[in-house]
């Protein structure tokens, strides 16, 4: 079955630095990957989508890359702020399905 792997360890970084989160998938390449943010006690909120034929996507301080050879997507937050602290979920999309990883918790310290 399709598996989506995200680093289960929390990522702790200093304010102003770039946070980089990793999403790896097994088996089949997705038609697209989506990234969501989830705060405690809240539902996930959509951030960015990248399609299989795209290498990179940007939105303000966010950047997503997609490497089908490595079966990996990287999610970057530049100039990170304490308000960016949350869990970030990667979701594999294809065949009318959206399969979520377990997420990586990011903590940005002042």
């Amino acid at each position, binding site marked *: 079955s399709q598996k*989506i792997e995200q680093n289960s360890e929390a990522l702790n970084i200093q304010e102003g630095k770039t946070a980089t989160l990793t999403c790896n998938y097994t088996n089949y390449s997705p*038609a*697209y990957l*989506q990234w*969501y943010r989830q705060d405690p*006690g*809240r*539902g*996930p*909120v*959509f951030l960015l*989508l990248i*399609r299989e034929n795209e290498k990179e996507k940007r939105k303000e301080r966010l950047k997503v890359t997609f490497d089908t050879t490595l079966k990996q997507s990287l999610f970057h937050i530049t100039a990170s702020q304490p308000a960016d602290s949350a869990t970030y*979920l990667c*979701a594999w*999309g294809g065949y*009318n*399905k*959206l*399969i*979520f*990883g*377990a*997420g990586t918790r990011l903590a940005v310290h002042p």
Partner: protein
Amino acid sequence: EAGVAQSPRYKIIEKRQSVAFWCNPISGHATLYWYQQILGQGPKLLIQFQNNGVVDDSQLPKDRFSAERLKGVDSTLKIQPAKLEDSAVYLCASSARTGDNSPLHFGNGTRLTVT
């Protein structure tokens, strides 16, 4: 636009009891999803509706879980009887379309505790 509404926000029941969750999606969204999120895990799809028809219920434990979407708008998810392992957050989401990478809009979920 108003977001996805879910109720109740929290529910505590004993095992073998029944429980129901309600979801009102974003107006005009044809596709509705119910996800189960166990603590420390990502959301797992239970059932997906396109209007009032079921698109995917392959991971729904049909011996105890049921869901319906009457008139293609609101939806209810029921568990009967509940087990301890059903303790989780039940998230409802909607999207404008299905299968074309439309982003999902989630509600804030119902946290179920089964004792």
